[in-house]
């Protein structure tokens, strides 16, 4: 009996060793596994930020009174802006925004100081570049803070009783300074491992088909499920190795806390990668050539990146689309990996987000198993 069990697993083990060797032996592909992901992690973690800083704005001040001077001084003294341009002509606003020198410009009318001094409200025109809708709104937010304190101080100066606003204290859990990199880095670990797992599985079968070695496997006593496992496990091993490498890099290079349980992270990562490998196998079971499976991978990857809550929050999507995002395993894993990194997410919560991935994995693996079986017959 024992011997029989061994006979079932040994061929699979051989298949796995072969698959890993094929990736690891070649120096070029070994480098491909290690260097690009690290570079991507470093570059993208800094590039993919919705933080807005280092922004330049412009002011066209037609008023020479004290009140407008006070306002421009406050704006120029604020740490939010890299450079504040002074325009002399009204056309400069247009030109400056057109060539994207500034993202936002202020226009102070000639009677600004007069209006304020007389106790009236002076309108300030703020022109936003709508081509950068997100960034310009954030900058407008910064500007509003300056306006508020300006208003308060001027009123006080004028001896008017200003209602003290409620002092709002905020506490940001998990990321005290609301830094974007806390969000991108764990997400990138997930994305980069996903791309690798997907590529390795999607191509492994079509490459064997193109080289004729797949026939050689089919005439061996291996059964379809053994081949399936033999194709799954190497991708699992390689991409778990990859994410470990990335995690180590994260711990050394970034000042990001890892609060949760490593065991839970690996547990959920294995489930996540199973679901990705299932998708990869499905792609390769319907593709004849390597080219088709690479392109198929891209067609899957693009909506994944856009709809999984990485590029934009899922809450911003229309209600009918939000349930659709559940079919992307990485959506659930994003919540888990960020949760474990930053929030010390408890076991129960991890399980709650893991089971959809289990379902996806079971579905895609069953589907690709069925596709393989059908193609073999």
């Amino acid at each position: 009996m024992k011997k029989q069990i061994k006979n079932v697993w040994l061929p699979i083990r051989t298949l796995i060793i072969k698959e890993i060797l094929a990736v690891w032996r070649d120096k070029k592909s070994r480098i491909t596994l290690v260097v690009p992901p690290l570079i991507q992690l470093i570059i993208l973690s800094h590039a993919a930020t919705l933080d807005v800083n280092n922004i330049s704005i412009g002011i066209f001040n037609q008023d020479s009174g004290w009140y407008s001077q006070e306002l421009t001084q406050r704006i120029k003294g604020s740490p939010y802006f890299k450079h504040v341009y002074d325009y002399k002509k009204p056309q400069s606003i247009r030109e400056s925004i057109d060539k994207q020198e500034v993202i936002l410009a202020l226009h102070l009318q000639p009677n600004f100081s007069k209006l304020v001094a007389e106790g009236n409200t002076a309108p300030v025109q703020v022109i936003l570049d709508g081509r950068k809708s997100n960034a310009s709104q954030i900058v407008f937010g910064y500007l509003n803070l300056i306006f508020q304190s300006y208003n308060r101080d001027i009123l006080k100066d004028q001896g008017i009783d200003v209602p003290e606003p409620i002092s709002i204290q905020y506490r940001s859990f998990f990321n005290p300074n609301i830094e974007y990199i806390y969000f991108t880095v764990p997400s990138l670990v997930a994305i980069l491992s996903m791309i690798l797992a997907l590529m390795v599985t999607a191509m492994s079968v079509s490459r064997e088909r193109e080289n004729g070695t797949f026939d050689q496997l089919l005439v061996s006593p291996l059964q379809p499920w053994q081949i399936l496992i033999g194709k799954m496990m190497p991708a699992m091993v390689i991409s778990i190795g990859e994410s470990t490498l990335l995690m180590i890099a994260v711990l050394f290079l970034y000042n990001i806390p890892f609060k949760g349980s490593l065991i839970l992270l690996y547990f959920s990562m294995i489930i996540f990668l199973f679901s990705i490998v299932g998708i990869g196998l499905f792609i390769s079971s319907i593709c004849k050539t390597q080219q088709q499976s690479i392109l198929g991978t891209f067609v899957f990857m693009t909506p994944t990146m856009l709809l999984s809550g990485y590029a934009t929050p899922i809450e911003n999507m229309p209600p009918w689309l939000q349930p659709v995002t559940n079919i992307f395993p990485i959506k659930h894993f994003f919540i888990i990996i960020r949760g474990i990194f930053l929030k010390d997410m408890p076991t129960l919560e991890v399980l709650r987000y893991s089971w959809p991935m289990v379902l996806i994995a079971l579905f895609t693996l069953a589907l690709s198993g069925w596709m393989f079986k059908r193609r073999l017959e």
Partner: protein
Amino acid sequence: MKHFSFSRFLAYFEKEVKQIMRDPSTFLIAFVLPLIMMFIFGYGVSLDADKVPLGLLVEDTSPTARSLEHAFLGTTYFDVKTSYNRSAIEEDLTGGRVRGIVVISQDFSKNLLKGVETPFQILLDGSEPNTARFVLNYAEGVVNNWVKQQKDEGKSFLTLPLRAVPRIWFNASLESRYVLLPGSIAIIMTLIGTLLTALVVAREWERGTMEAIMATPLRISEMLLAKLVPYFLLGLCAMILCIFLTVVLFQVPFRGSYFILFISTSIFLLAALGIGLVVSSTTRNQFVASQIVIIIGFLPAFMLSGFIFEISSMPWIIQMMTYIFPPRYFVTILQSSFLSGTTWALVLPSLLVMFFIASLFLGISALKMVKRID
């Protein structure tokens, strides 16, 4: 171009076209993927937050607190979940089911009536920084408005010295699809130009067709041209599809010149094709080629082009890198062509740089593609 033979070019060109027509995967990437992306950007993805799930922890049951609770329930920005149990709602925050918690503490109304400074707490989920900031800004707004209303009751309206009058140029209603749809065209063009060509050339090396072709009288110039033209045309077709969807279906205004757009698309496609050719003739292997294309084509188009992420906010060294990749220039041209009309100050330098990159890579590929196999 000595001895350039049009008939040889035509034969190789025809072959390339037939291969494109027969492989469903090229259609997938040239027409289906653009459709998917257009629909996602047009209907789905938006940077404008709306209905963010927010927890409201109510520890104070006075009418004043009730009134503030109603103020939150009345906004369209939040999807408010009221709770009376601190640990339950904090669990929701950890689980990501609410993005922030507004705490109306026990002594809230008491303090407020006394006129004592009332600390008011907002707890945020910092793991989603963008949403956290949104929650903070808008919750602050709701609370301040509410306070003003409370105080204004019976009082005369306070005249503020300064009032900002925002005017948004090019995109008055700040629709993010106006920005994202034109930007996504750069991604599609990169995939067609760089990925597709890289794969087809690498495939010829892998399958051994290259050796046979190289021994024929076909000139390198003829081969390069015959590889470029079909994918160039395919890219233009995809471009027309994208513009049609963007302008007609999603009603994004087009304020620039179609002619300029055509010229810049052409130059961008040439640059993308040139990069694809260089990658494939260097690697001669589809797997490695596709990996390289992800790094130098796909991700820069996504991340370093300024179409989602603001370039000026990146560290300077990464800002420098964005200048190397053509998508940055193309996205600039696309966004200004659609929204602000042709701004020569932006378009002209971008065109020139793209033209330089295109000629650089096409030049390298012509040099690298020698008729030799070692």
